[in-house]
């Protein structure tokens, strides 16, 4: 568990270096990634993977909105770091590898799941954005 906390923090922060995120945003990116990943791991034990991803993304999105307001930077900087551990890159690769190895059934399964997961992430991000907008309108 602690190992997962540390690795997800480092993974999210270093991924943001590859994406050339500003230096002063790296720690926050790592934090968002860590929260998202741990939440996902906990939820995944009881719920469906897609729903767990969706819920974790919503939380990441809300955290990113908050960071974006506070540090006056676009939301995407933080949300990218936050969702990176959950993004189905590994699945997309698995799908392609199975296609290449001529195991089409397995490949389609992976591909569909990757698509569903990215759908869940995208919906989660949009939902958190909508929530943020509603709250802001109420505050006015």
């Amino acid at each position, binding site marked *: 568990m602690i*190992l*997962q906390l540390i*690795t*997800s923090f*480092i*993974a999210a922060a*270093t*991924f*943001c*270096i*590859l*994406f*050339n*995120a*500003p*230096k002063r*945003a790296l720690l926050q990116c790592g934090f968002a990634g860590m929260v998202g*990943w741990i939440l996902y791991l906990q939820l995944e034990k009881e719920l469906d993977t897609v729903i767990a991803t969706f819920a974790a993304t919503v939380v990441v999105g809300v955290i990113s909105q908050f960071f974006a307001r506070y540090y*006056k*930077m*676009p939301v*995407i*900087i933080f949300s*990218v770091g936050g*969702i*990176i*551990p959950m*993004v*189905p*890159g*590994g699945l*997309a*690769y*698995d*799908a*392609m*590898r199975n*296609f*290449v*190895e001529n195991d089409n059934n397995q490949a389609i399964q992976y591909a569909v799941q*990757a*698509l569903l997961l*990215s*759908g869940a*992430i*995208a*919906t989660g*991000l*949009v939902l958190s954005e909508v929530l943020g907008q509603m709250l802001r309108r109420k505050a006015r």
Partner: protein
Amino acid sequence: MDSTSNNINTSAHDIIDLCLLAGKIMLQSGAETYRVEDTMTRMAAALGFPGAHSYVTPTIIMFTTSRTEPVKLFRIAERTTDLQKVSEVNDISRRLSERQLSAAEARERLGAVDDSAHAYPIWVQIAAAALTGACFTVMFKGSLWDALPALLVSGLGYAAVIYLHRLVQVRFFAEFSASFLIGLITFFSVKFGIGQEMDKIIIGSVMPLVPGLLITNAVRDLMAGHLVSGLSKGADAFLTAFAIGTGIGLVLSLF
């Protein structure tokens, strides 16, 4: 009369150019389609053209300020993810809207942003990729012993991508050969007992190359109604994943 209308025309042209430059930087840096459109129309509105229209896809920006102005077009050939540039252009456009910057100042700053290089030196990027690969190997339930070869392999893989991109202009070739390299080294390190689970090491190590974010952005664009952008980003992601899968698959079929 003639000279004033000429004046208005040139300033309109300048403003179109300014907005296009901002849009170009953002799109090349991997901003979402709606953000690019939003930023350009906001900048135009701040400079006195409230009715600006834009059409943005991953490869092209079209922009006009009004019905009487011709539409200008910009072709985007290369795209990376560069959050620093997205953030800076965002900042410039916000200041422009708040009248803290003049159009000339904004143009100067945008030019500087456009010319600026990646903020982190290459060895830092390679080290970051190596750490990312190792951490992902652990996160995907690989053991700590697998993280060690993953550290080496993903660093080498990312370095290969960077250098091959400069060397060869063919798209996806760098991804293909880098993942071939990753597969090869992983295979031999497992064979010589440095790592245990080949699958875990490979998945962790290809993570810095894999287009996960692109897939998510594609779905997001589709949901926002940017159908053309969504589909073309999806195709881009598919081809990249295909190149990586082929590279690894080749190693697996060779041995």
